C-alpha cells in the first residue's frame, strides 16, 4: 500500500474519530480535540499529498460503498498538489482553531464538522469517478455551509451569507451535474479513465457544452466573476480558521476541477475555451482587486483578494490551454506551472492573512478598518504576520506572489513568438490585467496594513487590543514560515509542480535551476531567470550596511535612544485619531479614478432648521461601494424571480376544489395531447 493511500485513509479515519469524539466529550475539551484532530487530518493529508507529488500514485475502487455506482479514488501528482496544499492549510488552521474557538466559543456541530470538512477537501482531488467527485463535492459544500453558519446567533448577517452560499453552491452543483452527466452518458462509463478514453470521439459541440458547464460549476466555487457573489459574503462571516480553509483550500478545488476536466478528461479542446478562461480570469483578477481596494471590511477585503488570485490562476490555466492548442507545449507547461505555484503561494499567504485578521477580530471585536489602527504596539506578532502576508500578497520581492506572477508573465510574454492574431491580441491584454492587478494589490495591502495596524488607534476597542493566545500565534507562525520558504526557495517546490504539470497532460519539466541549486529559477529553452533569495540577501546586506554606517557617523550627537519630537500639527494643537486618514479616505483617489467601474453610491441628507430653511441643522453624508456586478446582474434576476413568485400566487389561494380542478384539467389536457399526437 502506498504512502499516499495510507495518508488519505488515515486522514479519513482521524476525521471520523474526531467528529465522534467531539459529539460526546464535555464542552471544555471540545475546541482542543476538534482543533488538534483537524491538524492531524491535515498532517496526514500533507503526507499523502507529498507522497503523491513524489510520484506515488494509487487507484482504489470501492464499488460497494455507494449504491449503484460505487466510489473510486485515485491519486496522481496533479491531485497531490491540491491534497498537499489543503493538508498544510488544515494544519495551521487546526492549531489556530484551538485558541480561537476556546475564546470565542463554538457550537458542538461546528466543532464536529470541522475535521469532516477537511477530509472532504482532501477527498475531492482524490476522486476518480464522476459519482465520487460529486459526492465528495456535495459533502464539502454541506460541511462548509454548516461552518459558515457557526455564528448565526450572534450576527444576523451570517444567515443571509449562508443563504447566498447555499443557493450559489447548489446552482454550481447543478451545472457540474449537468455537464458531467452529459459527458458520462456519451462516454459510457463514469470513471475518469473511461471519460478520458471516450473524449476524442465526442463531437466538438458536445465537448464545448461539457466544458462550459464544468467551467461555470467549478468557476463558481473558485469565486470567478460573475459567479463570485457568494464569496465576499460567506468568507468574512465564517469563523476565521474556516475562512482560511475556505479561501486558501476550498476555492483551489474549483481550479483543480477546471484543470482535470479541461486537460485530463477532455484533452485540451478548442482555442475559444481557453480564451474564455483567460477573459474570465482577467476580469476576476481586476474586478476582485478593485473591490478589495475599496473595501473597508478587513475580511471582505481578503475575500475579494481571493477572487483576484483565483483570476490570476485562471489566466495561467487559460494561457496553458491556449499554448497547448497552438502547439507550444513548453509554454503551456510554464503557464500551468505558474498557475499551480500560485495556488500554493496563494494558499500560504491567504491562510496567514485570514488567521491574522481573525486574531484582530478576536482582540478588538471589529473587522472595520476605519475603526482599527495602532495595533502594532499591542499585537506585535499579529502585526508582523499580517505585514508579511500583505507583502506576500502584493507581488513585491521578497513575497511569494512575486515568484509565481513572474513565471506567469514570462509565459505570457514568450507566447507572442509565432502567435496567431487572437493570441497576439489576448496576451498583451492579459499582461496588462496582471500588471494592473499587481499595482492595485500593492495599494490594497498598503491600505489594509497601514490603516489597520499602524498609526493611532481610532476607537477604544482598538486601543484596548491584546495579543492573541499562543496556539493562535503558532498557527500564524506555521503559515508565515511556509510563506517564507515558498518565497525564498521556490525551487524546492518546482520539481514537484513539474510532475503535476506532466500529470495534467504534458511531459517533462520546463523550469530548471542554476548551478547554485535552489537559488535561481532558470527557464529551459527560454531566456529568463530570477533569484528571489539573492534579491532578498542583497536588500538585507545593503540595509544592514547602511544602518551600521549611520551608527558610525561621528557627528551624531545622541547615540542610542533617539530624541522624541512632536508631530507637525500646523500649530493647531495636538493631533487626534480623528484627524488620521482612514481606509475609506485612503482609497478615495482610486475610487474616483475607477468611478465608472465601481459606481460608488453617495447620499447627502441636509436637515434644515424649522425656523429658517437657509440654516442647516445637520448634514448626513453616506458613501458606499456596492458590488456592481451583484447590483446589476443578481438583483434583476432576484426581483424577477420574486415577481414571478408573487404573480403565481393567485393560482394557489388554498381552495381544495381549485386544486382538484387543476388536476382534472391537466389529466384531460394530457389525454387530448396524447390522442392528437398518436
Amino acid at each position, binding site marked *: 500500500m502506498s504512502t499516499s493511500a495510507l495518508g488519505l485513509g488515515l486522514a479519513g479515519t482521524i476525521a471520523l474519530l474526531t467528529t465522534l469524539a467531539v459529539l460526546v466529550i464535555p464542552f471544555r475539551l471540545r475546541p482542543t480535540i476538534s482543533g488538534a484532530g483537524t491538524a492531524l487530518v491535515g498532517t496526514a493529508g500533507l503526507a499523502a499529498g507529498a507522497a503523491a507529488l513524489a510520484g506515488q500514485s494509487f487507484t482504489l475502487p470501492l464499488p460497494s460503498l455507494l449504491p449503484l455506482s460505487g466510489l473510486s479514488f485515485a491519486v496522481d501528482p496533479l491531485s497531490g498538489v491540491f491534497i498537499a496544499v489543503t493538508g498544510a492549510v488544515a494544519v495551521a488552521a487546526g492549531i489556530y482553531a484551538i485558541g480561537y474557538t476556546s475564546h470565542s466559543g463554538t457550537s458542538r456541530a461546528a466543532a464536529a464538522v470541522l475535521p469532516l470538512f477537511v477530509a472532504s477537501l482532501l477527498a475531492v482531488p482524490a476522486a476518480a469517478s464522476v459519482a465520487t467527485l460529486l459526492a465528495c463535492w456535495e459533502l464539502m459544500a454541506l460541511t462548509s455551509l454548516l461552518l459558515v453558519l457557526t455564528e448565526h446567533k450572534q450576527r444576523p448577517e451570517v444567515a443571509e451569507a449562508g443563504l447566498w452560499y447555499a443557493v450559489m453552491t447548489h446552482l454550481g452543483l447543478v451545472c457540474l451535474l449537468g455537464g458531467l452527466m452529459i459527458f458520462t452518458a456519451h462516454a459510457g462509463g463514469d470513471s475518469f479513465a473511461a471519460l478520458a478514453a471516450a473524449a476524442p470521439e465526442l463531437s466538438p459541440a458536445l465537448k464545448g457544452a461539457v466544458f462550459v458547464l464544468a467551467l461555470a460549476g467549478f468557476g463558481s466555487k473558485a469565486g470567478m466573476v460573475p459567479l463570485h457573489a457568494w464569496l465576499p459574503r460567506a468568507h468574512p462571516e465564517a469563523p476565521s480558521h474556516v475562512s482560511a480553509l475556505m479561501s486558501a483550500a476550498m476555492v483551489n478545488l474549483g481550479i483543480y476541477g477546471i484543470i482535470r476536466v479541461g486537460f485530463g478528461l477532455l484533452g485540451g479542446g478548442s482555442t475559444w475555451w481557453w480564451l474564455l478562461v483567460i477573459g474570465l480570469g482577467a476580469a476576476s483578477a481586476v474586478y476582485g482587486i478593485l473591490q478589495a481596494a475599496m473595501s473597508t471590511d478587513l475580511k471582505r477585503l481578503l475575500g475579494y483578494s481571493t477572487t483576484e488570485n483565483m483570476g490570476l490562476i485562471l489566466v495561467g490555466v487559460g494561457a496553458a490551454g491556449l499554448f497547448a492548442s497552438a502547439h507550444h507545449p513548453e509554454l503551456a507547461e510554464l503557464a500551468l506551472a505558474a498557475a499551480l505555484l500560485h495556488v500554493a503561494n496563494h494558499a500560504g499567504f491567504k491562510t496567514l492573512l485570514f488567521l491574522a485578521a481573525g486574531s484582530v477580530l478576536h482582540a478588538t471585536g471589529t473587522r472595520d478598518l476605519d475603526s482599527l489602527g495602532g495595533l*502594532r504596539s499591542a499585537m506585535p506578532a499579529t502585526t508582523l504576520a499580517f505585514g508579511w502576508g500583505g507583502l506576500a500578497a502584493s507581488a513585491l*520581492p521578497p513575497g511569494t506572489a512575486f515568484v509565481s506572477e513572474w513565471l506567469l508573465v514570462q509565459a505570457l510574454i514568450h507566447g507572442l513568438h509565432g502567435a496567431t492574431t487572437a493570441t497576439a491580441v489576448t496576451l498583451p491584454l492579459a499582461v496588462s490585467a496582471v500588471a494592473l492587478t499587481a499595482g492595485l494589490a500593492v495599494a490594497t495591502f*498598503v*491600505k489594509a496594513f497601514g*490603516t489597520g495596524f499602524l498609526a493611532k488607534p481610532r476607537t477604544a476597542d482598538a486601543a484596548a487590543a491584546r495579543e492573541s493566545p499562543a496556539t493562535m500565534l503558532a498557527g500564524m507562525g506555521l503559515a508565515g514560515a511556509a510563506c517564507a520558504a515558498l518565497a525564498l526557495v521556490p525551487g524546492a517546490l518546482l520539481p514537484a509542480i513539474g510532475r503535476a504539470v506532466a500529470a495534467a497532460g504534458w511531459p517533462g519539466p520546463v523550469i530548471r535551476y542554476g548551478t547554485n541549486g535552489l537559488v535561481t529559477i532558470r527557464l529551459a529553452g527560454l*531566456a*529568463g531567470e530570477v533569484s528571489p533569495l539573492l534579491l532578498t540577501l542583497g536588500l538585507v546586506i545593503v540595509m544592514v550596511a547602511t544602518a551600521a554606517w549611520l551608527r558610525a557617523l561621528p557627528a*551624531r550627537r545622541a547615540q542610542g535612544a*533617539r530624541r522624541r519630537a512632536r508631530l507637525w500639527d500646523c500649530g493647531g494643537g495636538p493631533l487626534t485619531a480623528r484627524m488620521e486618514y482612514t481606509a475609506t479616505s*485612503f482609497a478615495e483617489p482610486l475610487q474616483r479614478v475607477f468611478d465608472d467601474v465601481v459606481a460608488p453610491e453617495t447620499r447627502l441628507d441636509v436637515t434644515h432648521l424649522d425656523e429658517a430653511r437657509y440654516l442647516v441643522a445637520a448634514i448626513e453624508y453616506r458613501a458606499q461601494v456596492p458590488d456592481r456586478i451583484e447590483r446589476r446582474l443578481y438583483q434583476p434576476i432576484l426581483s424577477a424571480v420574486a415577481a414571478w413568485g408573487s404573480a403565481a400566487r393567485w393560482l394557489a389561494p388554498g381552495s381544495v376544489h381549485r386544486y382538484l380542478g387543476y388536476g382534472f384539467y391537466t389529466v384531460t389536457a394530457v389525454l387530448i395531447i396524447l390522442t392528437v399526437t398518436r
Partner: protein
Amino acid sequence: MNALGITGGVIQAVVITGGAPLLTGVMRQVRAKLEGRKGPGVGQPWRDLRKQFRKEAVAPEGTSEIFRVAPLALVATTVVTAVVVPFVTSASAVEPMADLFAVVALLAMGTATLALAAIDTGTAFGGMGASREVTILALVEPTLLVSIFALSVPAGSTNLAAIVAATLNDPGRVLSPASMLAAIALTVVTVAETGRIPVDNPATHLELTMVHEAMILEYAGPDLALIELASSMRLCVFLGLLASLFAPWGIAASPTPLALAIGTAAFAAKVVAGGAVLAAAEVFMAKIRLFRVPELLAGSFLLAVAAVASSYFLAGAS
C-alpha cells in the same frame, strides 16, 4: 556573474551614490538658469545632505519601527537596483537579479515601504501622501509592464543584459515603432515614478499638491538625508534605465580600464543630458491636478499597448 559585471556593479554603485545628488543639482541649476535665477550651484544637494547627516536623529511621537526602517529599505532597494542593472557595463553584476520585472518590483517595494512609514505617523499629511503615491503607483504598473513586454519581444527575454546586448547587435531596432512608442511610455512612467512635474512637484510644500513631500514631512536629520539621497538615486536609476534600453552606446563590453572609463563617462553624460532635458521641459509645464494624472497615465498605457501591437504585427510582416 563575471569580472565585467562585478566591476560594473561596483562602479555603478559608487557613481550613482556619489553622482545622484549632483544630477539633482544640475537639474535645479538648469531650471534656475532658465527661470533667470542664479541658482545655488551644482554641489548644493551634497551640502544639504552633509548638513542633514550631521544632525541628531529624532523619533516623532507615536511612530514605530516601520518609520525608522523605511529610509533604509528605500536606500537598499535603490542601491541593489543601481548595482544589478547594466548601466556602465553590458553585463550585470548579478545576472539573476537583472530581470526587468524584478527591478521594477524592487523600486515599487521601496515606494510601498515609504507609503507605510507615512501612514505610520498618523498625520493627515502622511496618509494623504501615501494614498496619492500608491494610487499613482498602481496606475503606473500596467504601463511599465506592457512597455517591458514590448521591449522584451525582439530580445526574446526580460533580462536587462540580454535586451542591452540585443540592441547593441542591432542598433536600428531603437528606431522601430515599437521601441519609440515604448520610449515615450517609459518616459511618462519615469516622470510619474520619480515625482517630477507634471505629476508631482518636488519643490512644493503646499498641502493640496504634495505627494512625495507629504509622505516624508515627518522625517528629519539623517533619515531625511537617506530619503533625499535615495530619491535622487531613483531618478538617476530611471534615467539610466532609459539610457540603457534606448541608447546603450558607449557601454563597456570588456573589463579594460579604457572601456570602463568610456562606459562611465557615457553613462554620466547620458543621465545628465536626460536630466537636463527633463528640467528644461519642467520650466514650461505646470503640475496637473491629481485627478488628471490618470488620463496622462492612461495615454502612456495606450502607447505601450500600441508598442506591443506594432512589435507583433511589424515583426510578423518582416
